[in-house]
């Protein structure tokens, strides 16, 4: 399984990421997920979310999740970008791309990966109002 992980303070350039997708001719399904900062958090308006991480542990926990993902589904490629620092409303804090032979496994793996990262990857957010 091809894997790329980037934890960065730069904005996530989604079109550029899509344009840089490598060919996997046995794959019929590409699922991408972008997590955007919403304009409300806990029922009150915000301007941004400020993300912080314990980076070495976050990288290690992502690697563990990718290992498990590879065991569970025939995913050929996973690319994941998580942004740190202030992320304005409407901007992406998270971008995930999964390639798999068929759609059902790509969608299931995407759901699982997001659920798990929200459980174990040490990244936190604080509302900026």
């Amino acid at each position, binding site marked *: 399984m091809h894997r790329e992980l980037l934890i960065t303070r730069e904005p996530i350039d989604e079109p550029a990421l899509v344009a840089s997708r490598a060919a996997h001719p046995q794959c019929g399904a590409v699922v991408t997920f972008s*997590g955007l900062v919403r304009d409300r958090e806990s029922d009150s308006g915000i301007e941004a979310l400020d*993300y*912080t*991480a*314990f980076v*070495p*542990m*976050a*990288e*290690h*926990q992502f690697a563990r999740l990718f290992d498990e993902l590879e065991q569970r589904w025939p995913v050929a490629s996973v690319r994941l970008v*998580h942004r740190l620092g202030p992320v304005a409303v409407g901007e992406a*804090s*998270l971008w995930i791309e999964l390639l798999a032979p068929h759609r059902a496994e790509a969608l299931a793996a995407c759901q699982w990966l*997001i659920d798990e*990262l*929200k*459980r*174990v*990857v*040490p*990244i*936190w*957010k*604080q509302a900026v109002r």
Partner: protein
Amino acid sequence: MTVKVQLWSYFRELAGCAELEVVLPDGATLGRLLDEVHRLHPRLAPLRNSTLTAVGVEYQGQSHVLCDHDEVSLFPPVQGG
């Protein structure tokens, strides 16, 4: 033995510090370390049940036995994505 403790996210504001060193008897567990941290920083104590604990970059439970110079991290539930 001495272990280094890193606090993350709003645990830093609650404790008023990001990092501390704690001296413990040899063979002390992560649970014993938590007792000591909560004695030093009582505002963290009410959050004990939701506190996540790691040694290095791996999660460990409260029965985990610590070693000299271990780097322990304490933090609230994660919120990435």
